[in-house]
């Protein structure tokens, strides 16, 4: 029996170990070295020097701030709008599948295509964003060069993040809301609770586990924003919109600083693992309670 089992597991596991597990360990080991890209040349072990450099590197620190800002802006918006849409769709509404498909469409569209699309929308001249913000809403006196400075650039990148992510949180919330027993709503209605009261006191507590999962996964995803920044601003102008992954990528593949890039990767991995562990611990304590 065991022989058959290994025949099923080992080919796949060997590939998995080679492509995922071995590089995962290597990321850490590389981060402790001054890696020389030329084969055969010495790559001395330098301990934590890459980490010391990173935490004294204003561009890396700025990249962390940028991804934190991106996360703080995009996560609540995706949750509020996604949940709102899920509530609207959680009804025997004819045509709800059509709306679900429309809202989820950005999620399945390639990051490359939507990043280029938003680069065009946020063009400096008479693009769509300027048409709406300047000419319709009159929020700015003249056309904004969105991608030419830090905060307007981050705003454009965040707008893309929200637009592309809403459908995903909507679908998870919709699945969670569908699982809330009808009887709870009916009982609350008999007690005189209005629509808002039922939402607050019945739906929200019932979907709390799903909400936690969405929050944690969105935060993790927020810190990993990459392709949109790479294509929309390239981290510029002058590194002002760098996020950790674009900076890591730049250091590694433009300057061949593989050791330093690995230190940035590993720092971000630790951040993500801490968030995952926190969610796991929270789930466990919750399961014990109930």
């Amino acid at each position, binding site marked *: 029996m065991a022989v058959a089992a290994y025949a099923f597991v080992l080919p796949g596991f060997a590939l998995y170990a080679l492509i995922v597990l071995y590089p995962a360990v290597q990321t850490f080991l590389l981060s402790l070295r001054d890696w020389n890209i030329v084969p055969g040349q010495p790559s001395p072990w330098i301990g934590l020097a890459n980490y010391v450099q990173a935490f004294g590197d204003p561009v890396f620190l700025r990249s962390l701030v940028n991804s934190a800002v991106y996360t703080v802006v995009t996560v609540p918006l995706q949750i509020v709008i996604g949940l709102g849409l899920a509530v609207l769709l959680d009804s025997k509404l004819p045509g709800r599948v059509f709306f679900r498909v429309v809202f989820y469409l950005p999620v399945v569209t390639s990051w490359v295509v939507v990043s280029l699309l938003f680069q065009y929308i946020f063009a400096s001249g008479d693009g769509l964003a300027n048409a709406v913000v300047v000419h319709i809403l009159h929020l700015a006196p003249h056309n904004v060069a969105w991608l030419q400075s830090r905060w307007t650039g981050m705003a454009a990148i965040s707008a893309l993040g929200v637009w592309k992510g809403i459908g995903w949180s909507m*679908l998870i919330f919709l699945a969670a809301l569908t699982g809330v027993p009808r009887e709870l709503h009916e009982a609350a209605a008999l007690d005189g609770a209005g629509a808002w009261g039922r939402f607050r006191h019945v739906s929200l507590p019932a979907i709390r586990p799903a909400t936690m999962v969405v929050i944690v996964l969105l935060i993790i995803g927020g810190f990993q924003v990459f392709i949109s920044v790479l294509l929309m601003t390239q981290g510029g102008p002058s590194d002002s919109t760098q996020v950790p992954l674009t900076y890591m990528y730049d250091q590694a593949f433009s300057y061949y600083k593989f050791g330093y890039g690995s230190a940035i*990767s590993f720092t971000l991995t630790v951040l993500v693992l801490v968030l995952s562990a926190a969610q796991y611990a929270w789930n466990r304590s919750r399961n014990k309670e109930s």
Partner: protein
Amino acid sequence: MVVPRWRRITDHAIRYVLLTVIGAVMIYPFLYMLSTSFKTRSLILDDPLQLIPSDPTLSNYVTALTANHFGRYFVNSALVAVVSTVLIVFVSSMMAYAFSRFDFPGKRFFFVAIVVGLTIPTMMLIIPQFLLARDLHLLNSLQGLVPFYVGTALGFNTFLLTGFFETIPQELDEAMLVDGAGAWRRYWNLVLPLARPALATCAIFAFLGTWDEYAWALTTLNDTEVRTLPIAIALFQGQHSTSWGLVFAASMIAIIPVLIVYIVFQRHFVAGLAAGAVKS
């Protein structure tokens, strides 16, 4: 609970109004892209709110399809995506079969290693993966992409399928075992056909993931003839920075297979959703 008819009608009306307004905002960027892809170069950036081009033209599509090896890139992407998808579904279903049907020494270790790997973001591995690909001479080739696409997708799909296979009753296996069927026949003739919905979910996510993959292809591919579509489209934008119509015509061609897969199989998306997000 009996809801009066007028209340149900107002409820639906409010929902439709809100959904339509938000839906219009959500779909607008796509319409804007579609509209731009039919505009001539001079009309681009004319009036962003005018969706119907005053003088629509197919010339961007003709240029995209004929120039710059575009057909080649499309075929490259299709080949890589199809081969990777088949391998991902096949290899991860084999692993999932072992995890759901056998007890063997080290099973826990193997499974935990897969679950731990799920929490590691793929991008964090790109530097050592690049060195590995260089040492294995897998850089700058389409075949070289496949082992990396398959390897990084195995964890998630094995995890998803193991859960599904466990819901298939063991008694069916035992009945086949009595008839003398070996492990392979039970896997191939029993579990795989019964798991078709889950396999479909895996295949869809695997196809979309590999069809759209950008970062790894960008890092490892150099030569023109091995480019995949996402690389080609991003470069298109760099080379023809003012020809947005051309960029979006190419983009539309690239997202059509995705749209078809998505609209035909959209109910499968809910299934693999929560877990799929971990790696996206």
